[in-house]
């Protein structure tokens, strides 16, 4: 379990990586470095938000997820379509067209995540009402948000709404129903989520708040989307009625959708990782007053903006509104869903102090003072040539033993200039004295060796670090 703690689904495709610095500059948790010409994602800092996937001009950041062929691994499969799947299609007026197409694609049954979302909304309303004195609560539906809070905002962990995400509730209900319907062993049933984002892939393997997820596999909306198209031309009167969610459930896929289901006015809904970081900072400082609920989605536009979707997030938002226009507010109620089980988290989310410098306070204090000293030596350009996003991060990396000052090309240039001066001095000494003493000649040799080594490392950030570790 522990080794999965920092599992991530955003990965590097090394062959495509050009070693540029676009990703390191856009990573909100400064989790990427470029060393030896290739990007490198630091597991414990990464929150799986997928921002690097959007910004990498060489498409070297990718999301890993399961292929659709996983449906062959089970005797019976249930598709859990995220509501964001519906709004990938143009002019969709009836969700059943998509749901029936999923059956044609090979799934044995479907259960809408949006149906479970309405149960989560109801449970959230009840929970908030009973715990009003602990408000504001922070939405726990986006795994990247939970992971961000877990590593950066320890004081806000207790504010996370301790209710399972809609997809988890959907998975539980789907499995329970499938077992009843087929009489099969629960392991023979495959619960497969059709996801808008990679952070749900990590969630399914290493969930937070519960020990084990009921989701067996996670496939991408962008993979499933084109495969459904040929199955969507069916005569509407022939469709099996499968859809069972209303405005609240389907609306969850948009920013502001979760709060719409809470029927409260005292809320804040923020989307986009940069915006939510600001909100979390302000929440931490208790600058935001009068709030009952804070909805946070890592992606711009909410889940429709996930990196595994096809449609533009804002077009998808408009389509959502159109799709739910004539739907009732909610079609799912806890009292009518005996399969829903326990909707609350079983585990606490623990603070992971991954950004802490040392193992003890004393050690950290010493390291921080070294960081300050080093940072002052650097030019403060935050140019990224060293492979770290800022001069300060380079200093932190050095203090942690993951880089050397020479990774900074300005420091390196100064060192080279200094060496060449020394060489020049010795050379002119040789001219006037005729020859060099043994010690001076040795010194000259050592200067030239160092100069050669430093020049060789030039433009190859992390080179010096590699040399050091080789010696070890």
């Amino acid at each position: 379990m522990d080794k999965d703690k920092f599992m991530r689904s955003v990965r590097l495709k090394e062959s495509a990586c050009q070693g540029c610095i676009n990703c390191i500059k856009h990573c909100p948790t400064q989790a990427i470095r470029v060393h030896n010409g290739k990007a490198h994602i630091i597991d414990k800092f990464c929150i799986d938000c997928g921002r690097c996937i959007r910004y990498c001009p060489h498409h070297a950041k990718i999301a890993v997820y399961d292929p659709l062929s996983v449906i062959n691994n089970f005797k019976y499969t249930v598709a859990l379509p995220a509501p964001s799947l519906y709004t990938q299609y143009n002019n969709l007026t009836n969700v059943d067209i998509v749901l029936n197409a999923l059956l044609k694609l090979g799934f044995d049954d479907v259960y809408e995540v949006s149906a479970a979302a309405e149960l989560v909304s109801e449970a959230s309303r009840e929970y908030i009402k009973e715990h009003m004195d602990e408000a504001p609560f922070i939405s726990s539906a986006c795994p990247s948000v939970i992971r961000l809070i877990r590593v950066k905002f320890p004081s806000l962990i207790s504010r996370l709404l301790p209710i399972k995400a809609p997809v988890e509730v959907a998975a539980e209900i789907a499995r329970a129903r499938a077992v009843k319907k087929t009489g099969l062993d629960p392991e023979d049933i495959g619960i497969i989520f059709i996801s808008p984002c990679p952070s749900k892939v990590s969630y399914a393997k290493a969930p937070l708040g519960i020990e084990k997820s009921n989701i067996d596999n996670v496939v991408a909306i962008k993979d499933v989307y084109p495969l459904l198209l040929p199955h969507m031309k069916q005569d509407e009167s022939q469709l099996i009625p499968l859809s069972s969610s209303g405005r609240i459930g389907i609306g969850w896929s948009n920013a502001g959708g979760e709060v719409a289901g809470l029927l409260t006015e005292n809320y804040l809904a923020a989307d986009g990782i940069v915006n939510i970081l600001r909100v979390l900072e302000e929440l931490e400082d208790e600058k935001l007053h009068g709030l009952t609920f804070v909805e946070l989605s890592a992606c711009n536009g909410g889940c429709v903006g996930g990196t595994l979707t096809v449609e533009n997030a804002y077009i998808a938002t408009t389509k959502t509104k159109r799709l739910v226009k004539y739907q009732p507010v909610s079609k799912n109620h806890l009292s009518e869903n005996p399969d829903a089980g326990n909707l609350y988290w079983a585990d606490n989310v623990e603070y992971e102090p991954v950004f802490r410098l040392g193992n003890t306070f004393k050690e950290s204090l010493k390291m921080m003072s070294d960081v300050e000293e080093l940072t002052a030596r650097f030019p403060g350009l935050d140019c990224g040539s060293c492979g770290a996003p800022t001069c300060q991060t380079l200093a932190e990396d050095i203090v942690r033993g993951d880089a050397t000052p020479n990774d900074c090309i300005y420091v390196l240039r100064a060192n080279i200039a200094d060496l060449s001066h020394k060489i020049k001095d010795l050379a002119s000494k040789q001219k006037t004295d005729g020859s060099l003493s043994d010690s001076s000649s040795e010194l000259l040799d050592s200067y030239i060796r160092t100069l050669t080594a430093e020049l060789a490392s030039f433009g190859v950030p992390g080179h010096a670090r590699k040399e050091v570790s080789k010696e070890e």
Partner: protein
Amino acid sequence: MSEQLTFTYTIDGNDFTRAGEASSSVKNKLKMLGVGSDAIRKVAIAMYEGEINMVIHADGGVITVSVSDNDITMVLADKGPGIPDISKAMQEGYSTAREEVRSLGFGAGMGLPNMKRFTDEMHIDTELGKGTTITMKVHL
């Protein structure tokens, strides 16, 4: 002698959008030091209130934060008008902030009371026309 680390911040006067930058920076540093979240919260709130006060009343100033084994000390020094009546200023809801500042949602008269509430020690040194220096400590 125990290790001590000092950070200095210059606070720009009359720029509300930047108030909070210093406390945010300190907060991040304290997290990297592994300071407990309770102490971080106290420092962040007290320092933010102090920063806002310096922006509203004193046209900025300088904040020095020292971290040692035992405590975090924040010294907020400004060359503002000084505080004429400290006991009044310490009352919740008492504010001398200008109307336009209040219309921005500041000046609720909770600044100094919050600074006192969220710190373990607070000392105000003020002289009319010369400025104010507030020293706050949060024990670790």
